[in-house]
C-alpha cells in the first residue's frame, strides 16, 4: 500500500555525457516528475564506487539510482559495463545490510531521452513509495 505521507529522498547519480543531459532535456521539454529526486553529477556511471551507494542507503536515502549511457554509447568506452557489473555486487551487498533490492537501480538514459528520464524517475519514486521509508532512516 502506498504511504501517502511518505516523501522519500532519492539520489540519482547521472553521468555527465548522457543521463545528466537527458535530465536537462526533461527540463527543456518541461516534463514533470516527482521532486524527490536529487541528482549528483558524475563523469561516468563507472565512477560510482559501490561504497557511495551503500553509504547513501545506510544514511537515510530511500532509493539510489545510477544512470549512464546506453551500452555501447559510453563516452569512456565501457564505463557503463563496469557500472553494470558493480550493480550486481551492490545488490549482493545490500542483502547483507538488510536493504531491499528495489531501493537500488541502474538505468541507461541517453541525452535525447528526456521523456524516458522523467518516466524512470516517476516509476522509481512510485516504487520507493510503495516499499516505504528506508530501515536506516532515523
Amino acid at each position: 500500500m502506498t504511504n501517502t505521507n511518505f516523501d522519500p529522498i532519492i539520489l540519482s547519480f547521472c553521468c555527465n555525457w548522457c543521463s545528466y543531459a537527458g535530465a536537462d532535456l526533461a527540463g527543456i521539454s518541461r516534463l514533470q516528475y516527482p521532486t524527490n529526486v536529487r541528482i549528483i553529477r558524475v563523469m561516468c556511471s563507472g565512477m560510482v564506487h559501490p561504497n557511495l551507494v551503500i553509504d547513501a542507503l545506510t544514511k537515510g536515502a530511500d532509493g539510489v539510482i545510477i544512470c549512464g549511457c546506453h551500452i555501447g554509447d559510453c563516452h569512456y568506452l565501457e564505463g557503463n559495463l563496469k557500472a553494470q557489473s558493480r550493480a550486481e555486487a551492490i545488490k549482493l551487498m545490500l542483502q547483507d545490510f538488510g536493504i531491499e533490492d528495489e531501493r537500488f537501480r541502474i538505468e541507461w538514459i541517453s541525452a535525447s531521452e528526456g521523456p524516458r528520464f522523467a518516466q524512470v524517475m516517476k516509476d522509481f519514486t512510485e516504487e520507493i513509495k510503495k516499499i516505504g521509508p528506508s530501515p536506516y532512516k532515523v
Partner: protein
Amino acid sequence: MVTLIINNQKIEVEEGTYLLPAIESLGIKVPTLCYHKALMPYGACRLCVVEVQVPGRDSSLQASCSYPIINGINVFTNTERIFRARKVVAELLLARCPDSEAIINIAAEYGVKEPRIKKKYEDCFLCGLCVRMCEERMGRSAIGFTGRGSRRKQETPYGKHNVMCWTCGACNFICPVGKKVQSFTIDTIPISIPDSFNMGLNERKPVSVLYPQAIPNKPAIDNNTCLHLNYDVCGICKVVCEAKAIDYEQKEQKSELNVGAVILSPGYNPFNPELKPDYGYGKFKNVITALEFERILSASGPFQGKILRPSDKTDPEKIAWIQCVGSRDYERDYCSAVCCMYATKEAIIAKEHEGEKLKCDIFYMDMRAFSKGFEEYYIRAQKLGVNYIRCRPLSIKEIPETNNLIIDYLTENDRKLSGEYELVILSTGLTAPGQAKKLAEEFSLELNKYDFCETSSFAPVDSPKEGVFVTGVFTEPKDIPESVMQGSAAAARTLSLLFTEKGKLVKKKVYPPEKDITGEEPRVGIFVCHCGKNIGGVINVPEVVEYARTLPDVVYAEDNLYTCSAESGEKIKQAIKEHNLNRVIVASCTPRTHEPLFQSIIQEAGLNPYLFEMANIRDQCTWVHMHEPKLALQKAKDLVRMAVAKARFLEPLYNRKVKISRDALVIGGGVSGITSALNLAEQSFEVYLLEKRDTLGGNFMKVKFMLNGDDPQKKLNSLINKVKHHPKIHIYTNSQIVKIDGSVGNFSTEFKSDDNVHTVNHGVVIVATGAEDYKPTEYLYGQDKNVITQTELEEKLANGYLQTTNHKQQTVVMIQCVGSRDEKRPYCSRICCQQAIKNALMIKEKSPDTNLFILYRDIRTYGFNEGYYTKAREKDVRFIAYDADKKPEVEKINGQLKVSVYDPVLNAKVNIKTDLLILSTGVIPRDDAKDLAQKLKVPLTSDGFFLEAHMKLRPVDFATDGVFLCGLAHFPKTVDESIAQALAASSRASTIISKEEIELAAVISNVVDENCDGCAYCIDPCPYKALTLFEYMREGSIKKTVEVDELKCKGCGTCMATCPKKGIYVRNFKLEHIAAQIAAALQTVE
C-alpha cells in the same frame, strides 16, 4: 515614482503601475489565472488578492493585478486572511471548471481537493484573456462576451462565424484552462504551422527552437508565420521576454569572406515519394516515409517516442517497409546505399519498443548490408523476427474504413500473395541536393546525369576546380562513416593547400595572474539566478539566497535576474574581489551549457576555473516541478546545499601542457599508407613510412582495370613516384616493428628495416596495414586449374586471356560470397560484387558470346556501381540467386566442371557445365594485425579488423589518442573509399601535430601513494590503459604503487570506483566530495 511597502520591504515603482508586477519583482509568487503581462488587467479570477492598507484606513483585500499603486500603501501578501480568501476563490473556480489542470493545481496549493459546492463542469471561467487578446493584441475583436449574470458567456456575434477572425489561434494559446477555441469561434481550426524538424507530423509555434538539442539552443522567430512581422499585431513575445532579447528589426545580413579554399557539403534531398503515385503517399495517411518514421521513433519526436500511426494515433501491430522507393529504377539507376540498413534499424528499434506482438515485413530487392558490422546487424534483425520478403511491390491500396493498407506482391517463385498492414513505410532514396545545379554553375563543377558531383577514384573529394572540394552525399549516396571520412578528407586536402595559414585567425584570451589560495579556508560566494520567470516564476529566489547565507563557509550570496548577463558577470568579479571569495557557486541552469562561461568569468577575477560549481535549479528543478512551488523551493535549497558541500572541497586544477614530436609514423605502404604519408608531407610534416614488403603499392598492385575505365597501375605508379621523391617522406621497406612505446605526442618506435634497427620519435601513428584475399579451400580450388579467384581472373584478363577472336564459345560461372557471409566470417567483404561485375563486363567486352553466370546471394553494387550491374544484365550476364543454406555444388565429371545450384525463380536445380569457375573470395584481416594491435594497445573486432573509436562518428580514430586508422586494415573497401579514409586519417593526425604542445585534461586520476598498496585491481579495468604498477624503495623496503599516465587518462573514474582503499581518485570528484554531496542531500531542512 511612488513608494510602497510590501511585506515590510520598501520598494519604489513607477507611477500608474499596478500592484502585481511590483510584488513579483521582489520574487514573491502570487497565484493568478486572468493576468497577462501583455494585456490590460481585468481582475476576473480574484486569485491574486492581497491585503492593502492605505495610511489611516483599515486594510482591505484587493485584486493586486488591477490595483493601481498609491504612494505610501502597505501591502501584505502572505496573511491568514489572504490564504482564506484565495482558498474560497480557488474552491469556486474548481467547482466551475473541475477538469482544468491549472485550477486543480492552484486549488491543491490552498488545500482544496474537492469543492463543497456542486460541480458545473464548465470549460471556461470568463477570465476574458481570449477576448482581451483578440481585441488588444490582434486588433480583431472577433470574440466577446454576451449575456449577463449567470448567462454570461463568451462567443462570436450571434454565435456565428465572424469574418473578423483570421484563425490565428491566439485565443487558444492564451486560455489558462486549455479550452479549444474552434468550438466557439468558427468552423475552421486555427492555422497550424507544421514542425519541419518532425517532418510536419506535429505543430510548432511561430517562435520556436528548431529541436530540443539544437545549437545554439535559442528560439527564433519565423518571419513567414509571425503575425507581428507580417501584420504589425501581437508582439507579446517582446513584452514577455524579461531578458529583452526580442528585436523585431533584425534583418538578414550579407557578409563577405576572403577564403583560400571552399568545401561543398550540401547533402541531399530525400526522394519525393509523391512521384510514385501507386504507393499512395500523401493520399493514404498511413503511408509515410522512413524519415518520418525516424522522427516517430525519436524520444524527442512528435509522439515522444511512442510508435503511433498518423491516421488515428494508435499503435500499429503490422508494419511494412518498401525498399528502393526512388532508387534502382529506370529514372534513377543508382542505389541509395543507406536504405537497407536504416529500414533494418527502424524495424529493430520498433520491435525493441513493442516486443513480440509487432510484425515487421521488409520488401527488398537485394539486402545491401555491406559495411562494417552491417551483416551481423541484418542477421540480428532476422533473429528478432524481422521478416524479409524479396519482392518489389508495385502498388498499395487502402481500406477506407480502417485506413489499413493492402500490399499485393509476388514471391520469388511467382506465387501471388497479399498482406494487410496498419502502417507502411517507404524507404525513400537519396537524390541530389536542391542547389546542385546552382553550385555547379558557380564553382564550374561537372554533374552526372543524376545531378550528383561524381569525383574520380583517386581524388575522391577534389572538384575539377583547384581549391574547391566536395564531400558527402553530394558526390555519391553514402552512409555516415563514409561521409565523415570524406569530410575529414576535404579538410586534409584543404590543409595541404593552406597549411601556412593554419591558426592565423585564432585569438587567445589573456587572463590575469592566478591568485594562490593555498592554506586559505574556503570562502564561498553564491549567485542565484531568477532566469527571468524560469526560476523566479516558480520559486522565491530571495529565500534561496537567504538560506544560502546560512550554509557553512558561505560568505556572500546574491540573486540576479540573469546571472549569465554581462552585468551580472561584472558583479561576480566584483564580489570575488570585495569578499575575497575563493569558491564560486552559480545556482541557475545546467553546467553543460554555462559552466565554461562562468569559469571564464572567475578566471578574469584571478580565480582558478576549477574552483567553480553549479547548482542546476532550473533544468532539474523549477522546469520539472512547475506545479509544486513549495517542494521545488525545498529542492532548490537542497541542490544549493549539495553544491556548497562539494565546493568547499574543490581544488585548483591545471591543464598541463606537454611538448610533442611533430613527426608522423605511417605503418603500411599500400594506397592508403602512401596517401596518408603524402598528405602529411604536403602539410610539411616529416613522415616515416614503413612497408613490410620490399615494394610500395600493396593490394592495389593486383587491380588491373577499373569499372569507370581508369588505369589503376598508371595512377598507382605516379603516386609511388611522388612519395619516393618527397623530401619529407622517409621510406623503410622490408620493415618490421619491434616495439612502440609512449603515447600521444610522444611515441617512440623501434623497427627493423633491411636488417638495420631504427628508433624514431613521433607524435602520431597511422595504421594502414591492409588486408588479404581469402584463399579458398572450397569448390575444388587448388584441385582444378580452371577454378580460380577473381583476382587471378583479373590477372589472366590483363595478360591476354580471351584476346584472340578465334576461340570457341566459353562458359564462365562466378560464385559470390566465397569465404564471406558464412559462419566463420559473418561479414560481407563489400567489394566482391563490384569486382565480379567488372570482370564480367570485361569478359563480355572481349568475347560477347561467352555464357556468363553469376551465382549470388545479394548483389551489393551500392551507389553508382548499380549502373554497371544494370549494364551487365543488359549484356546478358545471367544472375542466379542462391540461399546460404543451398550453396552451389561443384563437381568434376570426366574432366568437365559442373556447377549445380537451386534457382528460386525456376524453383528447380540448374546444372551448368562450365569451362571456368571464378570464386569471388572475400577480404580477410592480416594474421599479424593481432601483433600490431597488442603493440599499439588498440582493439580488433571479432572478425580481426582494427576497431575504431566509434563506427559511425569516429571512423578513423582509435579510442587511444594519437593513433589513427585507414584502408583495408579497417574493413574491406574500394580504392576511392581507401583514399578518402587515408586523407581523413592524416587530417585527424594533423590536429595533434600541427601544435607545438598538447594540453592534457585536468580532471584526471591521481594516486594517493599512502593508501595504495599495489593490489593492481584498478589496472585492468582502465579503458585507456593509463595505469601501470611499479615498485620503489621506501624506508628500506619495496613499496608497490600505481602510476597514472597523464597523457592517456581521460578521468572516467573507473579506477576510483574499483579501488578498495581510496588509493586513487579523480580530481575534484573524490569519494569525499561525492560523499559530502550525499550527506548534504540527506540532511533535512527545516
